[in-house]
């Protein structure tokens, strides 16, 4: 009987059932750089979460005996102490908290806005799309960092929440373009036409049919955005327009980098920068690993 034989044939061809997530993980775990990136991210997140346990000192506590001259790394202070006699290791740990928080929350903001904006433009097309995308063109004509910096400086509000919002709300246009392109190419596919024909409304089509199919590049962009946001935050904080001292962030640990005291203590400059570099690279490796894992067709 041909009908009963058919499922057997399919099973034989496909082998055991593998879900998309399992399949992606299999490809991801074969990529050494991606695994290194993921390990670094995990270590950083653990370090940030358990900062109060790992750091032996209060990050803001001044050691009166050490004030004035930075001390080089030692057993008591693995990263040394800064000009104000604060333990640099504790500051770096608590700085990881701030930097990762800002990177992550700003990413959530920009991904949400960018995805909704891009889906709407791509789904409705025509004049709506044209107007929405001209606005994106305008936004992309600014060097985005400078725009973020200007708004942040004029707002003159440096709470971490405001910084996250400003970074997130001004860095979504690139992503919306990506989502729009995805939606445009999906919109004409047969399964969307079938859904429309069977009476599904706009909302249902977008949420049930377009979204799950357009999500892979968004996940990749989200991972890369965390790294970019950490870079942006560090730049803002370096200029004094981001996280405010004494709260430590990797960027504002470099704020006094050009002071003569700090220039005589190279480790104070090297450590925060290396932490930013490592973190940004780790998120980039994970992001590129995800790109290869989620889209088997993509070539490196």
């Amino acid at each position, binding site marked *: 009987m041909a009908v009963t034989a058919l499922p057997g044939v399919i099973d034989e061809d496909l082998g055991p059932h593998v879900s998309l997530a399992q399949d992606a993980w299999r490809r991801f775990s074969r990529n050494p750089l991606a695994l290194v990136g993921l390990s670094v991210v995990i270590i950083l997140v653990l370090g940030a979460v358990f900062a109060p346990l790992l750091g032996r000192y209060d990050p803001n506590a001044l050691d009166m005996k050490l004030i004035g001259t930075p001390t080089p790394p030692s057993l008591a202070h693995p990263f040394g102490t800064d000009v104000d006699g604060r333990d640099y290791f504790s500051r770096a740990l608590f700085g990881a908290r701030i930097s990762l928080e800002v990177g992550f929350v700003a990413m959530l903001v920009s991904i949400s806005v960018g995805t909704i904006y891009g889906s709407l433009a791509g789904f409705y097309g025509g004049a709506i799309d044209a107007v929405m995308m001209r606005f994106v063109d305008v936004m992309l004509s*600014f*060097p985005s960092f*400078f725009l973020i*910096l200007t708004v942040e400086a004029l707002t003159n*509000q440096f709470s971490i929440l405001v910084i996250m919002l400003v970074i997130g709300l001004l860095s979504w246009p690139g992503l919306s373009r990506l989502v729009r392109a995805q939606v445009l190419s999906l919109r004409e596919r047969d399964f969307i036409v079938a859904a429309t024909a069977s009476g599904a409304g706009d909302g249902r089509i977008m949420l049930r049919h377009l979204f799950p199919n357009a999500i892979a590049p968004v996940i990749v962009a989200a991972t890369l955005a965390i790294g970019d946001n950490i870079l942006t935050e560090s730049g803002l904080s370096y200029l004094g327009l981001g996280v405010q001292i004494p709260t430590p962030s990797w960027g504002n640990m470099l704020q006094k980098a*050009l002071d003569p005291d700090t220039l005589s203590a190279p480790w104070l400059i090297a450590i925060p920068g290396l932490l930013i570099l490592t973190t940004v690279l780790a998120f*980039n490796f994970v992001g590129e690993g995800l790109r290869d894992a989620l889209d088997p067709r993509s070539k490196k």
Partner: protein
Amino acid sequence: MTTFIARRLLGFIPLLLGISIVTYALISLAPGGAAGVLSGMSRQSTEADRKILLHNLGLDRPWYVQYFFWLKNLVVNHSLGTSYIDGRPVLTKIFEKVPVTLEVIGLAFACILLIAIPIAVYAAAHKNSLVDHLATLVAFIGYGAPTFWVGIMLLELFSVQLRWLPAGGLADIQSTHFDLGERVRHLILPVATLTLVGMASWMRYQRSAMIEVLSEDYIRTAAAKGLSRRTIIFKHALRNALLPVITLVGLFLPALLTGAYFVETIFTIPGMGYLALNAVFERDYPVIMGTTMLSAVFVALGNLLADVAYAVVDPRIRYD
């Protein structure tokens, strides 16, 4: 081609209008805006004085009215207004600073191309060689490190520790006249910072474009008919591999400009970035508008340049 450029330049008008509206709205609507301008006033000034000042600056009107007057002034008088801080015309202030920034960016861009392309080509032709791995390492650093940190590290190493190069400015303090050697020594660190950071993305893209081209059939054909490896790489592969990378110029300029802002701050170079950052700190709205508009124009021109270069390199592309 001429019609294409003309059409694109015409397209700039709505784009720049959009940019100016967005900028004006953003800086006017940012909370704490006008109050900041007044913070520079002396403490004795009365409420009436403040009102008069706000009125004279036009800051008591809604932002779109202010924008309209800004635009009218630009169209009718070809003026971007005057600085709140020293009363000088914004355009004059900007054009004093532009050459310095263009010098830094131009030199960095030339260095990036001269260094990144040959290395990327070599790395692509010798995959997994020492050069390839070293290039990847440098690219990673440039990719993940903040520009300002790279600048500070170079300054720390070559200026503070080794004392080889000056730490900032464009000339020695005691110098009385322009000296080319002096200028070059002062520009090495800033340009090196931008080059190191900018090289990263350029090298990565160029390398992967080159690797892709090298696996094409026509490369195998060229090898089969006995052409030397040199001819294949430079005449057959590189020309085609440059193509996708050229579009990068447009994306690249904003990053380079942002980098220049940091570099000018660190190495105290009196350029656009220096002017723009000071304007932001001093809430000098007309100057902020001017510098933001100029950087947007710069980016738009970069995109146009990329499209034109694209057509020049690839004769198959016709815009008209």
